[in-house]
């Protein structure tokens, strides 16, 4: 049951994340939903089991997210544009048809990863035993 709910939440998170460009949603909300999926896993299974399935440090996920988000901003400096400028391309992909690809998505992915990393780190931090 948890596994099904987990995938529903994950899918919803990705859906929210992708719709964010023109509709309500985006990296922050998507990241929150994604992290709620992980928190659910932590609640259902114990921390050790989940860690075996996700062998990465969520602090680093957060750091990588910030790096990605700030990095896309810095990238526009290389092209002689203002900091945080974004571009989009219309590309004809085989299956999806005409698709809009934007650097905004990379930035948003950074935001989503940051939120995911921070929220999970906080939850794990609270759950830790302190003597």
């Amino acid at each position, binding site marked *: 049951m948890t596994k099904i709910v987990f995938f529903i939440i994950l899918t919803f998170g990705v859906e929210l994340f992708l719709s964010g460009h023109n509709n309500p949603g985006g990296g922050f909300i998507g990241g929150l939903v994604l992290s709620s999926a992980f928190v659910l896993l932590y609640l259902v299974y114990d921390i050790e089991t989940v860690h075996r399935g996700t062998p990465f440090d969520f*602090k*680093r996920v957060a*750091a*990588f997210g*910030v*790096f990605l988000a*700030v*990095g896309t*901003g*810095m990238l*526009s*400096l290389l092209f002689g*544009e*203002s*900091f*945080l*400028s*974004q571009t989009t391309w219309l590309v004809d992909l085989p299956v999806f048809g005409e698709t809009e690809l934007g650097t905004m998505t990379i930035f948003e992915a950074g935001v989503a990863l940051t939120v995911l990393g921070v929220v999970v780190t906080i939850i794990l931090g609270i759950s830790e035993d302190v003597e």
Partner: protein
Amino acid sequence: MNNILVLPMILPVLVGVMLVFLRPYIRVQRILSVLTTIASAAVAAYCLQHIHLNGIMRLDFGDWLPPHGILFVGDSFAMLLVLVACVVSSIILLYAFATTGIETEVMFFYPFFLFLVAGVNGSFLTGDLFNLFVCFEVMLLASYVLLTLGGRKTQLKEGMTYVLINVLASWFFLLGIAYVYGVLGTLNMAHIAVRVAETGQGPLLTLIAIIFLIVFSLKAGLLLYFWLPGSYSAPPIAVAALFGALLTKVGIYALYRMFTLIFIHDPVIYKIIGVLAGVTMIAGCLGAIAYSDIRQIVSYNVIISVGFVLTGLAVATNTAFQGASYYLIHDMVSKALLFLLAGTVVYLTGRSKFNEISGLIRNYPLVGWLFFLTMLAISGIPPFSGFIGKVYIGLGVIETGSYVLLAVSFLSSIGVLYSLLRIFLNSFWGETIISEDDHKPFQKTIGLPLVLLAILVVGLGIGAELLSPYIEDAANALTNPEQYIRAVMGDNLE
């Protein structure tokens, strides 16, 4: 478009994030972090010269023109503070290398140090009220971590007070921002200034102005400083020096920005600031004289100087603004030095009450003479860095005829001198309490940052002439808010 303007904030963020991945490599972390702050200082110096030649710089993020997008605005006042903040934090980093233990360093000490610098620089540079809030939060979150890192009991106790006070202040800040947006429909600071001038600063806007006054007074330690002495004496020495040098200055900067650019039409507010500044100086002096804990005395000295700098805002003349710019720069450098010296004394002797220590100058002559020099500089004795700022603020106060404020602010200098002289006479003179066996060696790595800061203190006093063109730019930008507004809104105003 001046992308370079964003570097003093983005470089520390970017490098700080990278350091998270380099967690086990402390040496690499140290080198990268000090290089970053030096590079930011170099960028700030370049920008300062650029502003001097070509006027105020502006960067619209993602080319969204004001008032729609967020933006960074670099005027001389902000850029001078960015420059000094970067230089001072580089030197404090050197001290942190020598004194911070490996177990603290590995807990992301340097990333958070850099995030704090990023937040401070961002707060100085931003031209958008909500962005100012965000940069404040970046700075504060980093400071929460640095304050409690190590987890000693006093740190956690003072950390609790500090976090609660700042969360409350941030909530008020947000409230004020919501009011401004509700009343004026914009958050761009220059645009707010234009709209306030258009509609006139009625009772409603003055009320909002007072909310901001309360918020920034809490952050700067203007009268609402009750949280400050405790939380500035709890953390490790290097962190305390960073706090003492930078954090209150951001609050002071925000007060200056608010009340020289936006809410400038109601003279009552300046009277309130004047009264607050006077009371702050008196209360700060009482605190500095009342305590015998060296770190407490040093923290109260921060409060006195907050009151003194805001005297300049209360009278709001060009001369006073020049003095305030000088004094802010001096205060960042000399407070960093004072905190480091006080911390060094406590570290070397293992005691924190000045009447339990004596004869230090025999064992550690360098620390003793540097303390003497800092004391002279902070009390405003020429030729050191505090003198010129005090003279100009004093001249500004005389121009407006606020003689009570003048008397209070110069008597406060005597209070500063007395409180530090007591430490000097008791702790450095007399019979030494340190026996041959207890003598802790004084490492060169601790001495170097102290000497560098002392050179700055002397240099700022003697080389004040070199700085004066930039100081004049800063004071002119503060006296003529039209400059700032034109630089931001120039394209869309007419």
